[in-house]
């Protein structure tokens, strides 16, 4: 296959989330990225031109592109996370566009959970505000590997280097309190297009890359934990057919690390060991499997393994095994967290019940102070909590492993997902 298409086949996938309020120009920025990468089609453009005209906007309102629900268009606000897609010859991008005001934490946490990159918009006129702190804290809590601060509306501050530097210093002061591995700053004007896709001629003092260049080139392949092999068993594959009478494979997605055919593995919770006999994706035989592949693994020995068990490489340090789990919990539900309450817990492919033993503190995400007095946990609150699970979980700390370090709580009465937890 020739140049262009084979290039497409070799693209990397990058997921990013955008944070900012309506007035930060977030929709304009997303519209600009989609438009400049030709991801907006003529009929979509015509549809939003018609809609903009109807609602009396002078310019084409690119926000209408992302507001997919009728009530969102009626109220002019974004209610729920929306997913957008665009591609350049280098990468395919998935944007989790999260609304700025309603159920803010819940939505941003959701969008952030799978993101490699967070774009945080800062209005150059207003600088670092409470909300910037909130966004940065959530990006850090969810361990998004790369955070790009887009200092937007530079056109409204005369493209001033001083303004940019001041904001950069203010963010640096905050970030010492956070744990973000990679922070970048780009001065942009989403409306005029400066430093979004094309280099700005108005800011010769800025020698760094454009936003699109960063998105296309930021190094993401080491965002995944390559160190320790963790394979939560999702399903047991047993054809029991004439052709495959004795096949017994374990289906799952590699959460981290890699394993080779022939290597010794340990199965949790039983602790039995065996060797990897084969690794397959359908009839494609693999020599080794690595994150984030979905594969089927067979072992040399017959061991009783079922969904919820975990296969790890014997040479790697094992995960922690415990019924007592310390988590940072984001609460999503209108019904408050019940101290000593019981919830269903889902962690990798394992499921159990748990009790909330203790609430240690509530995080004030506007000041980053820990509140140990008022520990009633309501919707959108973040808290440090101790859980006691009915059976041991096999886990790593969230900062080492976003898959084996994360869990959700489900209300046993309503079946709703009420909280997300990051294991400390």
């Amino acid at each position, binding site marked *: 296959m020739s140049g262009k*298409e084979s290039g*497409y*086949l*070799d693209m*990397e*996938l990058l997921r990013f989330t955008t944070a900012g309020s309506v007035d930060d120009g977030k929709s304009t920025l997303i519209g600009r990225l989609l438009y400049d990468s030709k991801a907006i*089609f*003529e*009929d979509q453009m015509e549809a939003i031109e018609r809609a903009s005209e109807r609602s009396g906007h002078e310019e084409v309102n690119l926000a209408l*592109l*992302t*507001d*997919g*629900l*009728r*009530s969102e268009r009626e109220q002019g606000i974004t*209610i*729920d*996370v*929306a*997913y*957008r*897609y665009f591609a350049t010859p280098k*990468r*395919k991008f998935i944007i989790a566009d999260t609304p700025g005001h309603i159920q803010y934490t*819940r*939505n941003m*946490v*959701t969008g952030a959970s*799978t993101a490699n990159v967070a774009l945080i918009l800062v209005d150059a006129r207003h600088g670092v505000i409470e909300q910037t702190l909130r966004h940065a804290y959530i990006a850090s809590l969810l361990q998004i590997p790369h955070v790009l601060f887009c200092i937007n509306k530079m056109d409204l501050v005369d493209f001033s280097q001083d303004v940019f530097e001041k904001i950069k210093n203010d963010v640096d002061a905050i970030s010492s309190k956070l744990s973000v591995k990679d922070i970048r700053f780009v001065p942009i004007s989403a409306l005029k297009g400066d430093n979004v896709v094309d280099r700005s001629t108005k800011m010769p003092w800025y020698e760094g890359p454009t936003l699109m260049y960063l998105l296309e080139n930021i190094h993401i*392949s080491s965002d*995944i934990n*390559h160190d320790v092999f963790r394979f939560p068993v*999702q*399903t047991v*594959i047993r*054809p029991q*057919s004439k052709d*495959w009478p004795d*096949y017994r494979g374990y*289906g799952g*997605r590699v959460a981290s690390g*890699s394993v080779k055919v022939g290597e010794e593995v340990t199965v949790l919770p039983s602790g039995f060991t065996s060797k990897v006999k084969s690794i*397959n*994706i*359908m009839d494609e035989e693999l020599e080794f499997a*690595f994150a*984030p*592949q*979905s594969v089927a693994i067979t072992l040399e020995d017959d061991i009783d393994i079922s969904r919820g068990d975990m296969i790890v490489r014997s040479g790697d340090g094992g995960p922690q095994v415990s019924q007592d789990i310390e988590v940072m919990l984001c609460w999503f539900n209108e019904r408050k967290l019940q101290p000593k309450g019981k919830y*269903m817990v*889902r962690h990798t492919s394992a499921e159990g019940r748990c009790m909330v033993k203790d609430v240690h503190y509530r995080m004030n995400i506007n000041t980053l102070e820990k509140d140990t007095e008022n520990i009633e946990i309501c919707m959108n609150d973040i808290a440090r909590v101790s859980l006691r699970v009915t059976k041991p979980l096999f886990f790593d700390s969230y900062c080492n492993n976003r*898959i084996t370090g994360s*869990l*959700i709580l*489900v209300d046993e009465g309503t*079946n*709703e*997902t009420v909280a*997300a937890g990051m294991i400390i």
Partner: protein
Amino acid sequence: MDKYRINHLKELEAESIFVIREVAAQFENPVMLFSGGKDSIVMFHLARKAFWPAKVPFVLMHVDTGHNFPETIDFRDKLMAETGTKCIVELVQDSIDSGRAVEEKGFNASRNKLQTITLLDGLEKHKFDAAMGGGRRDEEKARAKERFFSHRDEFGQWDPKNQRPELWNIFNGKKNIGEHFRVFPISNWTEMDVWQYIFMDGIELPNLYFTHQREVFMRDGQWMAVEPCMTLKPTEKIEVKHVRCRTIGDVTCTGLTLSEANSLEDIIQEVASTRTTERGGRSDDKRSESAMEDRKREGYF
């Protein structure tokens, strides 16, 4: 670290296989909806990958409007026979005959909306608790708000303002009796991803997707196929053109594209250079700005 890297198509594949396996594990009686279009063909292909060398551990269901291209039905039957898969067919005609659905009238009458009735009845009849569909978030703006695991109440309705948060790759399929889930394993795929993947894996498609000569007529700026279920207005005249389908729905709402593309490479080129969306040729979406949202709320795919 390059040997530990996979391209975007392999990563999407891994995500979809994970979702499909999760459905098989979390539900008692799931079903995969199959329309004979490229998205459901790719989804079925992924399901076969997920459980190989075992057979796919659930049945397929086709909601047949009776207005399908004959090529679609032939393709479906051949694929099911080759893979030894069971596909239940539920007919919209049965819903009409039993008085559950009322046929639309007029030249633009379509059975698209009636499918919802047949679909919901079918889910109830067979006691399916999860239905996987080939919907993608890039298709339409209401779909952009969909979860992978999308909860439906006892009436099959979607409440887009009150969806469960979905984090990492942890899916919550808990529900009460009478409720069900719609699951969209290829949520994150775009039209281009689907075509690239079909090319990469050499997946067979109905020949409707490739250029062929067909009797067509122009209606509302769109080329439509001349088939027994279409009634032409006196002003509409039959012509023979080289066309192909960009999406395959039922005959009454599938616009045809003038195209000479007869290979996957050609189609990929065409998709890369085209400036209108895939569903731009679907008259079912053009009825109003929230046509899709309204149908989805009622229980549409």
